[in-house]
């Protein structure tokens, strides 16, 4: 039974990271209806900037984490300004393809640095001994990661519910024409959405890199796995991303824990999310909490 609880615990850890990664994706989709395929690259950028500041420059990790959030915030904003601003009003296909190109560009830029090919890991700054409770053990980094994730998601929910900017972003996602007519600047909202997405991606990157180490492929794979998460949760629901992130984290851990080795199956944790994604697309494409505005053909 403690095996089960161990799986639940690690599922929640992985799931909360998925939720945080999915958050940034949902932010962009919610305001501008763009699928950002370069999300994984932003996640890894956040992680690499944190590492470079901590180890390369020698700033304490708490401050460098915050600095990386700020840097990625600005970076995502300028990406929106340079590449996506002039595509407002273009068909959605070309906007999505621009994000594919962006993903390629960022890949290339990261490969120019040692981070693209080599592995690094953060210096330990938390106690090494894991917390054990009733046979379930969680490391300090995981615990801090989960707590940070909860705080960030709460902050983002507050931002969307209460602050003027958050409300204007929701208004734009609801009806662009109407929000323009009451004086909301749509380009500014799009820019802010990208910036906020970059911010949350960097946060996710910092947390993931502390748990799994800095490996470019692993970090980028978190940007790909957000697709099952956000589809399961509903593309435009922050709450959905959180719930779906934790559900998928649990399912992945259970698959890895119970299915691997059965019938000669291996690596099911990588496969299960995509099957769930296909099933969800077939039977309930708006996900668990998305709004029901899918156009049927």
């Amino acid at each position, binding site marked *: 039974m403690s095996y089960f609880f161990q799986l639940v615990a690690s599922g929640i850890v992985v799931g909360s990271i998925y939720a945080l990664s999915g958050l940034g994706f949902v932010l962009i989709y919610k305001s501008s209806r763009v699928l950002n395929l370069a999300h994984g690259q932003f996640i890894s950028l956040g992680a690499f900037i944190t590492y470079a500041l901590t180890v390369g420059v020698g700033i304490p990790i708490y401050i460098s984490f915050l600095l990386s959030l700020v840097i990625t915030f600005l970076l995502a904003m300028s990406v929106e300004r340079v590449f996506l601003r002039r595509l407002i009003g273009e068909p959605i296909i070309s906007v999505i*393809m621009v994000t594919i190109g962006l993903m390629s560009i960022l890949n*290339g830029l990261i*490969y120019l640095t040692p981070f693209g090919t080599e592995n690094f890991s953060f210096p330990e700054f938390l106690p090494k001994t894991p917390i054990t409770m009733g046979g379930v053990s969680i490391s300090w980094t995981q615990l801090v990661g989960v707590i940070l994730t909860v705080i960030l998601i709460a902050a983002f929910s507050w931002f969307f519910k209460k602050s003027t900017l958050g409300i204007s972003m929701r208004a734009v996602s609801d009806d662009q024409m109407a929000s323009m007519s009451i004086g909301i600047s749509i380009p500014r909202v799009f820019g802010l959405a990208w910036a906020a997405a970059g911010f949350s991606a960097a946060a996710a990157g910092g947390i993931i890199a502390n748990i799994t180490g800095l490996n470019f492929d692993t970090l980028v794979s978190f940007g790909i796995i957000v697709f099952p998460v956000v589809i399961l949760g509903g593309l435009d629901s922050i709450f959905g991303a959180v719930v779906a992130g934790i559900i998928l984290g649990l399912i992945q851990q259970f698959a890895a824990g119970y299915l691997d080795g059965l019938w000669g199956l291996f690596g099911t944790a990588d496969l299960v999310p995509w099957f769930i*994604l296909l099933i969800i697309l077939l039977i309930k494409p708006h996900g668990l909490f998305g709004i029901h505005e*899918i156009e049927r053909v």
Partner: protein
Amino acid sequence: MAQNRWLATGNFFTSHRQEQRIFFTHLDRLVFICFLVIVFIWPLFIEFGNKTMLVIDNILVAIIAIYGLNLLTGYAGLISIGHAAFVGVGAYTLATFARLLGSSHVLLTHAWPLMILLAGGVGAVIGAFVGLPALRLKHLYLVIATLSFQMIFQWVINFSKFFNQGQTISIGRVFWFAGKVTRDQHYLFWYYITLIFVVVFGFAVRNLLRSRYGRCLVAVRDNDRAADAMGMHPGFTKVYAFALSGFFAGCAGALHAYMWRGVGFESFTLHHSINYLAMAIVGGLGSLMGSFFGPTAIFMLDIEVEHLSEFAKTLFPAALDLATALRPLSFGLVIVLFLMFEPRGIANWWRIARTYLKLWPFRY
């Protein structure tokens, strides 16, 4: 009025039938035939090394794959970021035969044209299956469906013992009328075979596009409600576009497998899907000519990037592997720049050049 069938300075069409001609003037046809002749006979006069021939063969195989992607993304307006997986389906169809019957079974070595078409058929079936969500969903969600197909494909290949866990599965040399294709004939032989496939499929696509089934794709792309009102079935059309795209991708995959004499997992990753998309965009989405320009341009770019990184290596020996960095960087830049400044791709430059030549020496 008697028309000049050699040179046309304007639009003299009097019927829809005339407008749907492949060649508007005899001159067009003559130029095309001359071009075909040149393409078929140049290897008799010029001899390239294996490395160059490999690149040329690769371009031709990519052209077939891009026919499929162009039909899907350009004409039917459905983005696919799993095209390399469809190509992989074709290649792994051959690999399945190689694993079951041995790599030099008669079926693989003698009945290869059949095998290539069979691989196309399997690709079409899988394509239609992946396109099934298209019965209910619009493009945003279809992008994700193709992405998940790519991921599932990678998983299946990587984790199944049957497919050698992604390691190369070799495929034997083929036979033709003059016996076994030897090592030094290999690339030339596949140059001709792939070229024949390119020409035949090119005509097939061109003819498809001027039939009702081709116009149906464009109609559904432009406005699916209007298409529905005109009596087409948008969902079915999309599934059918996926099947067509899968067919071309499957054939390309089989040719790729024969040409490399083996099937390995590294040729069909997400990265390659993006390359295919880059080829389609750079060539020009929604134009047949684009299918030729795109792969050529991207492969040229690839070679240039390799040269550049080798040159850089002589300058700074410390820069270990610039090519891995410069390749995605340049591809991404090319995609983004083309989308921002020339969304109609190189095919548009071709169109401009043609109109200019047609009216020369007059400006318009």
